């Protein structure tokens, strides 16, 4: 049998291949197969060396020195040098999208110490810095070859040190990759010689393709998983993902500036029912930090991220809305069916405390725009995995009311503290966010799956939903 | 015309209608002279018969008279006023004449009942529908139709029935002038007679004027006060009906007379006819000089050079023929027709 590629289906095409130019997680899935960062944060938050073997932090927590790994080569065979690292971060600072840049806001400078050493100077201590640097999705942290980037257009092609080498891309069709023969890590290098990511927007088509052996692996939705369940020839791995569905609340508008109103809304939501109905049972109730993080505050300690209609009504009455009010939900339509169902359930659940929800089904661009212009009241949203857990908790003052000062202080304290205290401090922030129900109301963390055909094995995804596990997949 | 005399009901002066024909696949393009300088007048209560070759411009003349087509040159006036005068004056004048179309099947809206079509001129004048219906019911028997036919669709009627319905429509609003384009062509003779009588009767009581176009010389003579003969867009002869019946002068008119079949089997079996030779010339490319010369049995050299003008041969009998005053074709004895 001729060597055939591993064929993987994805729903959504990547918007760009430039790892500084998109805030869309579905685009990152492509980057992380080709690019790597200096370090990687694993699902538990531990920092693992990748392109850097060692790093040191000074006492002020503002100077990081990285030692680059020996013998690392880009996919075109050129060796990795400190210049490439400096170039990559300069490029980020100059051309990066706000989203990517903001991950590394604290960087003051990146300098080459010598060919093997790079120094990052921060403006102030940033306990999440290494975590951001270690994002498995390499947003902003990907290391590009300076020489290559000057002669190629990184928006249209990729060339990195990762397990795969970019071969070609046909828009809306497929991304063809092959094993990066120069990969520094014999274990981490791709197991299959060729990888094809086929972009198939319709899950039904993916199912049909998987069943007929035309693709090897797909990422089914909860509905698709139901359809695949009975099929013996299809293997499925489930992960309890860190993706959380939330309601953003515009606290800049009345009556949402009143914590009691926010508390009432949160209490009115039956998260178990949402998990059951919207996610077809494949989710768990969640507060700001997904429960799969060991350090996350436990759900049963939550004051307001629980279901209590009576208390919700009382709070509403206290806030001066005994008969409830009307609210518009800026709903992201056409993104995921569970989000649609969530919106519908929300409407019925809030109706029970007298709040009438008008679902405004908006296309992504409109939804985003309303959000960015703070032109909304309630808004459903999904947060994907965040390497730096602070981003689960980060208020976005531009699109909602002012951050309560005590919370801002707590966050600054956590950032300025050491990495060891960081998570404990964040847990405190989370606790405070539950109490104030600010910046958002978190509903649930959903499950995710990888389904694969009979010929494939060693499928080991993790809770981040990162696609890096594809490097480890092999044929039987 | 003395200056104090009332203007005639209808006056056409030098009316010209040319159709521009584009060249196409081997056919030459050019101007088709459908009506080429026609002048005529018609008084109230008078009937003008029009005869002529198929394609000589009779229907086009009819459309010019009723104002369905604007003339390219010349004028059409009703009671002394141009029917194409700008504004409401012209529009008013154009509304005073009616027409019975040559193709009755095409002149009725296929999706409306015959009654609705007949009532149309009344309804358009704002007559209430109940009164209009009553009027239709009164009118249909006059043209020999059963009043029940009002609820029929045009395609449910025979050709003659359709024709009668269009006559009824033309007459119903008592217009000052009605142009009949082959109005009785597809009627049986008894009906034809009935309609002709009806027209005469209406004319006598209401003073209506008619332009009566037909291939049937006998029918034309039965109703007309004056007759004009057209050939290739021009008038070649005009005469009082009686004079014309007795003695047509233009060779073409004579040929028409001679070709007309008589309702007498014995006579028809015995007689032979002068048949015109030659093809009908194209109206796009009429012959020089006299337009009839290519088929005229008496054509001479002069006919090719000089176009004859309408000249009086006495008693208001105008003929456009170089031979006219002298070329008195011996008149056939009137046939004895059993009745």
């Amino acid at each position, binding site marked *: 049998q001729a060597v055939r590629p591993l064929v993987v289906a994805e729903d959504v095409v990547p918007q760009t291949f430039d790892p500084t130019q998109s805030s869309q997680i579905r685009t990152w899935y492509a980057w992380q197969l080709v690019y790597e960062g200096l370090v990687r944060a694993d699902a538990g938050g531990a920092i693992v060396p990748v392109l850097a073997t060692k790093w040191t932090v000074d006492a002020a927590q503002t100077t990081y020195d990285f030692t680059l790994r020996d013998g690392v080569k880009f996919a075109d065979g050129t060796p990795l040098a400190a210049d490439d690292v400096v170039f990559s971060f300069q490029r980020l600072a100059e051309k990066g999208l706000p989203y990517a840049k903001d991950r590394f806001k604290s960087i003051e400078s990146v300098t080459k110490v010598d060919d093997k050493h790079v120094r990052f100077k921060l403006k102030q201590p940033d306990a999440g810095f290494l975590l951001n640097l270690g994002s498995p999705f390499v947003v902003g942290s990907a290391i590009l070859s300076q020489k290559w980037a000057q002669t190629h257009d990184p928006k249209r092609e990729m060339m990195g040190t990762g397990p795969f080498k970019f071969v070609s891309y046909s828009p809306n069709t497929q991304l063809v990759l092959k094993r990066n023969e120069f990969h520094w890590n014999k274990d981490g290098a791709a197991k299959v010689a060729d990888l094809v990511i086929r972009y198939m927007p319709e899950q039904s088509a993916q199912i049909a393709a998987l069943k007929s052996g035309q693709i090897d692996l797909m990422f089914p939705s909860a509905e698709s998983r139901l*359809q695949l369940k009975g099929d013996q020839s299809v293997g499925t791995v489930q992960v309890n993902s860190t993706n959380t569905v939330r309601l953003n609340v515009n606290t800049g508008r009345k009556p949402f500036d009143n914590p009691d109103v926010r508390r009432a809304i949160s209490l009115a939501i039956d998260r178990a029912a949402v998990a059951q109905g919207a996610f077809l049972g494949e989710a768990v109730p969640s507060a700001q930090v997904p429960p799969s993080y060991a350090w996350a505050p436990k759900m049963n300690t939550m004051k307001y991220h629980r279901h209590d209609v009576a208390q919700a009504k009382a709070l509403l009455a206290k806030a001066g809305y005994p008969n409830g009010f009307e609210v518009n939900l800026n709903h992201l*339509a*056409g993104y995921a069916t569970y989000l649609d*169902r969530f919106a519908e359930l929300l409407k019925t659940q809030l109706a029970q405390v007298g709040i009438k929800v008008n679902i*405004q089904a908006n*296309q992504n661009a409109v939804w985003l725009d309303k959000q960015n212009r703070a032109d909304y009241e309630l808004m459903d949203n999904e947060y994907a995995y965040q390497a730096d857990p602070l981003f689960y908790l980060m208020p976005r003052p531009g699109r909602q009311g002012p951050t309560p000062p005590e919370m801002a202080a707590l966050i600054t304290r956590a950032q300025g503290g050491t990495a060891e205290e960081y998570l404990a401090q964040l847990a405190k922030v989370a606790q405070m966010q539950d109490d104030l129900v600010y910046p958002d109301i978190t509903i649930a963390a959903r499950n995710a799956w990888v389904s694969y055909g009979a010929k494939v094995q060693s499928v080991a995804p993790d809770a981040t939903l990162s696609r890096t596990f594809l490097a480890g997949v092999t044929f039987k | 015309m003395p200056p104090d005399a009332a203007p005639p009901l209808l006056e056409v002066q030098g009316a010209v209608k040319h159709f521009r024909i584009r060249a196409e696949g081997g056919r030459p393009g050019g101007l088709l002279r459908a009506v080429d300088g026609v002048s005529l007048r018609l008084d109230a209560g008078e009937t003008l018969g029009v005869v002529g070759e198929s394609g000589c411009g009779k229907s086009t003349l009819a459309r010019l008279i009723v104002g*369905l087509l604007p003339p390219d040159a010349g004028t059409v006036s009703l009671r002394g006023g141009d029917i194409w005068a700008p504004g409401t004056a012209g529009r008013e004048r154009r509304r005073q004449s009616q027409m019975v179309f040559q193709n009755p099947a095409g002149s009725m809206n296929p999706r409306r009942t015959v009654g609705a079509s007949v009532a149309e001129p009344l309804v358009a004048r704002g007559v209430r529908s109940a009164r209009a219906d009553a009027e239709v019911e009164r009118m249909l028997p006059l043209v020999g139709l059963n009043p029940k036919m009002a609820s029929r669709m045009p395609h449910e009627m025979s050709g003659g029935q359709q024709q009668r319905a269009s006559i009824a429509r033309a007459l119903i609003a008592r217009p000052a002038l009605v142009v009949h384009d082959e109005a009785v062509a597809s009627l049986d003779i008894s009906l034809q007679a009935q309609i002709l009588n009806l027209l005469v009767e209406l004319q006598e009581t209401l003073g209506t004027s008619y332009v009566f176009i037909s291939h049937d010389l006998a029918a034309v003579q039965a109703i007309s006060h004056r007759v004009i003969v057209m050939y290739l867009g021009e008038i070649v002869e005009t005469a009082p009906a009686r004079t014309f019946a007795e003695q047509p002068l233009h060779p073409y008119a004579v040929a028409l007379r001679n070709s007309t079949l008589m309702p007498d089997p014995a006579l028809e079996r015995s007689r032979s006819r002068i048949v015109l030779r030659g093809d009908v010339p194209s109206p796009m490319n009429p012959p020089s000089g006299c337009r009839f010369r290519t088929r005229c049995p008496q054509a001479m050299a002069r006919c090719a050079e000089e176009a004859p003008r309408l000249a009086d041969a006495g008693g208001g009998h105008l003929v456009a023929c170089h031979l006219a005053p002298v070329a008195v074709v011996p008149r056939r004895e009137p046939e004895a027709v059993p009745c």
Partner: protein
Amino acid sequence: MTNPDGAAVALPQEPAAGEPPRSGFLADLLRHKGGAFALGVVVLFVLLAIAGRAVAPYDPNTGDLASMLAAPSAQHWFGTDELGRDTLSRVIDGSRIAIVVAFLSVALAMLAGVAIGVVAGYFGGWIDSVLNRSQDVLFAFPTLLLAIIIVAVLGPGLFNAVLAIAIVYTPRFARLARASALTVKTSEYLDAARLAGVGTGAILLRHMLPNVLPSVIVLAALSMSTAQLAYASLSFLGLGVSPPQADWGSMLSKARDFITVAPWLVIWPVTALVLLMLAFNVLGDAIRDVLDPRHATATGPANAV
């Protein structure tokens, strides 16, 4: 005295009063085989749309999560969806939108299109050119794109979606109407009407329109169906009614994810859709038949070539 001629005796005699049998558009339509059936179906759906929730066994928008994706049973004849909502009730509730979309969007498009087409065809000249070109511009947009843009501009919602579909469909009615109007314009009966002194408005209304309508009606029936589908696509893109209001299109677009797990979620809305669309089209054909002056009621086929 005996009648010597047998044939005359055998003549079917008309009723004594001589009254013709009852005729009229509706009577003829009811006598038309397909027409009666289709009209029945349409009326049924209209009634369902009006009665809606009153006849639906459950609240269409709230479900019992305990019985999600339940197969058809005595309790839920058409089964339940993924939120435990009763499919029968949702199908019934969805008929309202189906009817509104079908009738309203096509009626608007037809009204505007026929008016534009007839005016353009009748007057010709620069009016024709201007109307024609502007319709061409609309026409040159892909249907769905134009609808998306219009809804995006107007904002989502049932009536905006209906309006968008109406705008999108206007040019094709205009074209068709103009083409028919052009043939009518050169007909002699129009000359006759003009001579009769019929005003422009009445000519357009009484002569143009009846002759333009038959071809337009078939298109209208087809458009009622495509309007549904266009609406389904719009609501699939989140540009239709706001959830959880049921409409067949979005019910289907969600149900497709469950097609093998809960086929009833697909079957029932499709059945309703097909039934109504079929009825529209058969009704359109029937109306065309009945409007055809050559149509014969008693003997079936009008055109037995």
